[in-house]
């Protein structure tokens, strides 16, 4: 590269003025502990996770406290969420025969994931708990245990294995190929993708918000080149737009998580074809 191009590049990019921009990465999610009990470090996502429980319980307790035929606004909101999970997730996907037993489980999962996701956009909290992978794993394992236990309860252990691994209408040599694939996809890949989907969406969404926010701050204040400021403002506006996208994504991930849970339970309970 010639000296002239270098000079132009320096003038345009202002690399001499400010210090280098540090892009956010996975390390942005490793927050310092808020406080420690003995050797146990209590971090922000742990506190948020614990905080979400009294929040949910409090809301639905308040919503169901004064039950009336003509519901108050609060009761209506509570019943709307319950009705949504019960009718459009549980009844449609678990099947009308068994769904009522699973409504509490699905409802708990839905509200728990939803509230923890929306912590991402609440000012000062601003951290989705499930953007730490270790928080998503136990939830997915719980779902894994529940749907497999349902299948074993309904069909018996070997009956369930047959139900999972042997699709109806397949016979002969192709079974050699189908059985390992079906086993892999139903027993092993399902919990992994369930946990990873929730984690990756929360992680990527929050990373995007951090990137736009810190990028805007850097371009406006620290880049050492006043011509960067408009781009910084653009980055800031884009950050706001991405927040609106996040409102949708956060709900969608809670919905998809619950939907897939219901679908897996429904699949395990379904009759032999």
């Amino acid at each position: 590269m010639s000296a002239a191009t270098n000079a132009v590049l320096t003038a345009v990019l202002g690399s001499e003025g400010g210090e280098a921009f540090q892009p956010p990465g996975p390390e942005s999610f490793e927050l310092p502990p808020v406080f420690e009990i003995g050797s146990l470090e209590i971090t922000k996502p742990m506190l948020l996770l614990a905080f979400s429980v009294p929040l949910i319980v409090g809301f639905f307790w308040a919503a169901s406290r004064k039950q009336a035929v003509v519901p108050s606004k609060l009761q209506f909101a509570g019943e709307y969420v319950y009705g949504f999970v019960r009718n459009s997730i549980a009844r449609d996907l678990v099947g009308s025969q068994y769904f009522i037993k699973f409504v509490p489980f699905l409802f708990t999962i839905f509200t728990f994931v939803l509230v923890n996701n929306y912590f991402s956009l609440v000012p000062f909290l601003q951290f989705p708990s499930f953007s730490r992978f270790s928080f998503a794993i136990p939830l997915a394992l719980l779902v894994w245990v529940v749907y497999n236990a349902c299948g074993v309860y309904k069909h018996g252990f070997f009956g369930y294995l047959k139900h999972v691994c042997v699709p109806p209408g397949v016979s002969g040599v192709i079974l050699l190929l189908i059985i390992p694939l079906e086993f892999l996809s139903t027993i092993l890949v399902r919990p992994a993708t369930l946990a990873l989907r929730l984690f990756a969406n929360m992680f990527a969404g929050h990373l995007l918000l951090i990137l736009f926010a810190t990028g805007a701050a850097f371009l406006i204040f620290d880049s050492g080149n006043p011509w960067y400021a408009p781009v910084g403002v653009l980055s800031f506006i884009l950050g706001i737009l991405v927040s609106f996208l996040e409102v949708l994504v956060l709900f969608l991930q809670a919905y998809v998580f619950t939907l897939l849970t219901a679908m897996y339970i429904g699949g395990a309970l379904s009759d032999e074809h």
Partner: protein
Amino acid sequence: MEISGSMNMIGYGLAAIGPGIGIGLIFAAYINGVARQPEAQSRLQSIAILGFALAEALAIIGIALAFVL
């Protein structure tokens, strides 16, 4: 100016094209189906979400590997 970062992310960007197209096709078919027969929506929705979950699994495995490898 120095640009630093992981080449993995470029690979992940390329790899995400496939699931992106797949998810687009799934929801295009879903919208088509609902437009033709609105009363089939609840039945089609679960199938569409299942297909979406399966196609998205590829993108998710991709992002996990992009960070891990």
